């Protein structure tokens, strides 16, 4: 499951038959970016392609790591400090695959899914984040 959400994300507990290892990643809005005070973030998505590419990568993760389930929710819109920007929940029979699969999903999401982040700094400035060129698929 891959979903874009414009309302706050509420994390729920998965309970999958046969699963023993559950790994959850939550990315939250920090109060600074490279030392510069941040007031809020803004996420924008190319919704149609973000959803199809997101579903694709979740399916790839399930196959690659033999996961029982994997669910991703990514916020769009304006987020205040401490809010959850992305929630990834993965279940698998054993813990190794759950850790590896969950980390792979967030790594892939960051380089493949058309979502953009604007940092609104405390000094009133705001900037679209452009990752350095090494961060490629």
């Amino acid at each position, binding site marked *: 499951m891959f979903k874009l959400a414009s309302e706050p994300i509420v994390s729920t507990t998965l309970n999958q038959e046969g699963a023993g290892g559950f790994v959850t990643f939550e990315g939250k809005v920090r109060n600074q970016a490279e030392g510069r005070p941040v007031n809020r973030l803004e*996420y924008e998505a*190319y919704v*149609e392609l973000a959803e199809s590419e997101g579903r694709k990568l979740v399916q790839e993760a399930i196959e690659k790591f033999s996961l029982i389930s994997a669910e991703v929710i990514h916020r769009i819109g304006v987020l205040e400090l401490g809010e959850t920007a992305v929630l990834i929940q993965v279940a698998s029979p054993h813990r190794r695959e759950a850790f590896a699969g969950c980390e792979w999903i*967030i790594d892939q999401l960051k380089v493949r899914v058309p979502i953009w982040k604007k940092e609104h700094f405390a000094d009133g400035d705001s900037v*679209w984040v*452009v990752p350095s060129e090494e*961060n490629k698929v």
Partner: protein
Amino acid sequence: MTVNVRYFALLRDQRGLESESFESNSATVGDLVAHLAQTHQFSLPPSRIRTAVNGEFADDDQVLVDGDTIVLIPPVAGG
């Protein structure tokens, strides 16, 4: 031929609009991106702009067809 272009995030800000339709004589997606990057003085080099055509990721050498919708995708930064 007519192409429809959509801009997101940084590129939307730099273009000053979300989408537009215009006559183009660019042969490929890459040609169109290079043209737009120069015309609108994008801060990103064309090599860092990905594209989708009609809803699917596209390569620079994809040939443009009348009526195509091209989306300009600056480097993504989700998560």
